[in-house]
């Protein structure tokens, strides 16, 4: 089941014949003997294996950070992959120097991942500041430094890059001039153009083969199954977009979490979007994970599934005979069981454009606030007219075998007035639809309590003048 794969690794065109389920990390470390990229967790939770992935989009290379330990080589066709070896120059890069100056590396095992992540940040962001630079390395775990020296390095780095940036020069001229990336980066675009024609893949979506977009959960849970089965790797072949009609927003199935996060269309209707997404995975995971993947994976705590359930999203399912529309809330039948036949796949996700009196909030509670799997997550949306609930959707993750749409509650609160008494009603009613179990993420009593507390939080955030601190305590 090997497949032809062609891409640019650092400054070299690589052509190989590999099982597409081979992880990029194993290819880099074991086949190419580039050992600067480290293996630590093999589940995308630490960033030690982070590499930079570049691809051409509208005549520009877009660079993104990915975790190579859960990234299949079947998805790297026609891409530029950059490891720490591909960043090293005769002198230290300003990022490397900033780490040296602050002793921001102790045992050193995590360090290449941090350097790579920060380089990718400088390659990809329009503007640089301390906070967004920290966000860019938030998926990198360091067990030695306590991060303070890393924070100091980042602070110094951003100041110096901003001070030395010439607005007259192009980005690549700046980056090469400041020695952030080596000279060869200038020639990558041509190299990618050159090989792109060689690697046109025929994608067959409706033959019942498993379709792999980002694979960020599958490669954690079932790496060996993937090696032994035939799958369709689509992330390097199908570009997906978020588009709008007059009344709807259409999200392509292969849209990544980070695309969703950065979408102007989504951002317009969900002003708190970045705050919610900040709690959802690390940047390299958000870069790879797809929305459709999150939905079909059917994890009871899938963050985007809960988000989309809370706004009553619809799916378009396709096979070679027909296309049908289904509400996401009707898609989940039981634990990991879906209203989807083997030959069907999600082609897009549709959400109705919210009206003016639309209220939405998303909450997620986990043991560690960031880069953790939710204990309980929840979304709530409401349309209010004259203080009366006209439409409501409430979802909870982690309290049932499926991402839970609170069907009864969402209906029960229709026609009710937004007044302090409503809160207790919703809190009490919510407990009827839950079936939490005790597990590693918390006891069932805790999860039930969290549901009550999150409801209070939703109301406090959305209607602070009605559900004041006094009302919710």
């Amino acid at each position: 089941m090997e497949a032809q794969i062609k891409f640019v690794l650092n400054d070299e065109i690589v052509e190989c014949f590999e099982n597409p389920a081979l992880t990029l990390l194993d290819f880099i470390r074991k086949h190419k003997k580039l050992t600067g990229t480290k293996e630590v967790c093999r589940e995308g939770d630490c960033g030690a294996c982070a590499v930079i992935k570049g691809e051409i989009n509208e005549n520009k290379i877009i660079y993104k950070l990915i975790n190579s330990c859960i990234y299949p080589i079947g998805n790297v066709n026609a891409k530029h992959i950059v490891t720490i070896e591909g960043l090293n120059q005769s002198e230290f890069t300003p990022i490397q120097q900033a780490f040296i100056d602050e002793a921001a590396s102790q045992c050193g095992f995590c360090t290449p991942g941090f350097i790579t992540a920060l380089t990718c940040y400088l390659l990809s962001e329009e503007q640089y500041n301390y906070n967004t630079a920290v966000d860019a390395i938030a998926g990198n775990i360091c067990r030695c430094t306590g991060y303070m020296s890393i924070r100091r390095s980042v602070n110094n780095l951003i100041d110096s890059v901003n001070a030395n940036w010439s607005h007259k020069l192009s980005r690549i001229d700046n980056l090469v001039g400041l020695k952030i990336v080596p000279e060869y980066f200038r020639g990558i675009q041509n190299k990618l153009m050159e090989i792109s024609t060689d690697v046109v893949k025929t994608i067959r979506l409706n033959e019942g083969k498993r379709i792999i977009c980002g694979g960020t959960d599958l490669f954690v849970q079932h790496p060996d199954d993937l090696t032994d089965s035939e799958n369709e790797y689509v992330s390097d072949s199908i570009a997906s977009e978020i588009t709008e009609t007059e009344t709807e927003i259409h999200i392509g199935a292969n849209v990544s979490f980070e695309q969703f996060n950065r979408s102007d269309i989504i951002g317009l209707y969900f002003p708190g979007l970045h705050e919610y997404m900040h709690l959802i995975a690390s940047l390299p995971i958000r870069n790879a994970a797809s929305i459709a993947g999150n939905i079909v994976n059917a994890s009871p705590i899938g963050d985007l599934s809960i988000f989309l359930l809370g706004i009553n999203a619809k799916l378009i399912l396709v096979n070679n005979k027909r296309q049908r529309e289904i509400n996401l809330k009707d898609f989940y039948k039981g634990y990991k069981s879906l209203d989807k036949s083997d030959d069907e796949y999600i082609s897009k996700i549709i959400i109705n454009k919210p009206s003016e009196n639309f209220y939405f909030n998303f909450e997620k509670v986990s043991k560690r606030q960031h880069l953790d799997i939710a204990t309980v997550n929840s979304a709530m949306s409401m349309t209010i007219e004259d203080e009366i609930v006209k439409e409501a959707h409430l979802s909870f993750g982690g309290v049932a075998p499926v991402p839970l749409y609170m069907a009864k509650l969402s209906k029960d609160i229709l026609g009710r007035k937004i007044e302090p008494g409503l809160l207790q009603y919703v809190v009490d009613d919510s407990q009827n639809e839950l079936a939490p179990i005790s597990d590693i993420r918390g006891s069932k009593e805790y999860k039930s309590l969290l549901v009550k507390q999150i409801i209070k939080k939703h109301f406090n955030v959305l209607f602070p003048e009605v559900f004041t601190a006094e009302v919710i305590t």
Partner: protein
Amino acid sequence: MNNPDVNKHVRGESIFIDDISLPAETLHCAVLDSAFAHAGLVSINTNRAEKMNGVIAVLTSKDIPGENQIGGIIQDETLLAVDEVKYIGEPLAIVLADSITNARKAAAYIDVEYKKLPVITDAREACKNGSLIQQPTIFESGDIDKAWGECDFVYEGRVETGGQEHLYLETQCAVAYPKEEDKLLVLSSTQHPTAVQRAISRVLGIPMSNIEVDVLRLGGAFGGKEDQATHWAVLSALGAHITRKPVKLVLPRYQDIRVTGKRHPYSSDYKIGLKKNGKIIAFEVIYYQNAGACADLSPAVLERTLFHVTNSYFIPNVRATGISCKTNLVPNTAFRGFGGPQAMFVVESALHDAAEKSGISYQTIQKSNLIKDGELFHYGQTCENSNALKCWEEAERLYDFIQIKKNVDEFNQKNKLVKKGFSIMPVCFGISFTSSFLNQASALVHIYTDGSIGVSTAAVEMGQGVNTKIKTIVAEKFSVSSDRIKIESTNTTRIANSSATAASSGADLNGNAVLLSCSNILERLKKSAAEELVTEDKSEIEFADEFVFVNGKKTELTWTKLVQKSYMKRINLSSHSFYATPEIYFDRTINKGRPFAYHVYGTALIVVELDCILGRYKLDTVKIVHDFGKSLHPKVDIGQVEGGLLQGIGWMTMEEIIYSQEGRLLSNSLSTYKVPDIYFTPQNIEVNFLEESINKFGPFNSKAIGEPPLMYGIGVYFAIRNAMKAYKKNLVMDYSAPLTPEKVLMNLFM
């Protein structure tokens, strides 16, 4: 001087064991470990596995040529299980194959028949059943039974602390190369090369001298590779010894977490008695240590617990009982602090409890009991150069406790849903291995004819910067550029009979040994320089900035020239020297003595912020005054404080080890065991050096740094509790760490 290792780290060019380029014939080793926490081992059948693709050999206990025993302190740990398995993760067999994929695949085809036996995971239950690692140990001072009568207040309570996964980023690993005859070279990611060498010798039945263990650097350890690295190095050595091929063993993360020991969970009972003025008169405590299935380092860890019963406080009457309980969990082991943090959490809980119940403020009790010079620690050592109160008062002066407390109160007045909490955490930590004999080290310094310098010690570099410190010592002593100095790998052939790089002692012991070697060579070079410069008195000779000075005047004679000339005169340019910490002893028959060369002190102020609706918290402020002595390398030392602090905070907050009743680890991956990330750092952090701290035991008056800062993290527990109390005035809560968001919310609302 910057840490030279960092230059390689940032380029990804530092070589770790998994990065080494190996000969093509190298075999890859997979380990099959026990699926049950307690079971009879009826049979192990390797037939199917042996026939799998690429498999060269499958080895079980029957294939061990020497003794099937790797126990360090107590001989109770087999290399490969024989009749019984005692924890999930206990190694049963190894597969050697041409690739790691083939080896791991084949391991699944080893057929093991188990007969399940009852499982104990709880320390107190083990104690009740008489399942102990060794007889209980008691440390006692004063007359505790009489002392209770003198107290105005007496309180009792129970305290729990959880385990902690080291989560060194580099998993356990080793490569063993067969050499001529039955000799071996073993590269191991260990803090204790001699322990590896000794265990291999025993298991293979070959002399220690035939085994060379070499350690270049570790990708983190934190105590997790002091004793626990041995198992994997010995298994790879066994494979190489039998197949006569190089054998590489790298544990995958999921297995590393499952099979390796962690920080010991403790369950403790205390009784504390105080006077109305807050003076503590008596403290009694029983520690139930959950040791796991084998002794490993548990007796030593427990002993350090008993040394740190009173943290920074002077308590005249103490009785502390330590019980090491044998359970069906992975053998727990060393972890930064080595039993000290567990003891300190108990005494702080007792003080906090006494404060709440007596109405005296927690901070008043803390401050008024800080140990002073001349007072006795409960193990008989007289307190000298105490910096306990100095650190507290300096912190008070620099950070204005009263103002910070006022700000917290004002914030809490204004905010109903978010509350801040405040605490102060003093730390006093004894420096030296508590087994006095381990406080020895040797160093080997060579000066080559081009003036470059090679330095070998027993210190293992694991990120803590010990090599940088040793380099600083050599550069300072010889007054040469640090570029001349190479710190060699840690190697049992160059440095024999070494102690582990542990107990925060790496720079002290090895630095002092290096100083002796440098002094020896320097004396010879001074004599040689005196001859060259025709000066009668060699005491007038000095070295500065690579030149020889006479009576303070620079001469033409450079370091390199002098070295060359000395070589031609057949002067010895190498020195091997030996250091043993003076003045220390400890009598285990009475548990009294002077076990520590000195103590490290410090005080941390902590403010946290709590979301009282969702139970989440964040760290607002941590401000520390720490007693570094005269720091050898301020940047390295600050890094140790910040890193230790966050690790301690992790232990107190989100790092939760959970086992099922069957003894199965549930927090078994990075997605279920969470360590602090970059967002969890304190928003404000400040670390100040205590001025004028002297220490004749540390090289150039420095003090050990590795472990003490971890215990500042304990203050975060009490700060969160303080914030909870601001939300819920009548809060009643057990003293149990970690204080996860779950515990916070359940205690606020249930």
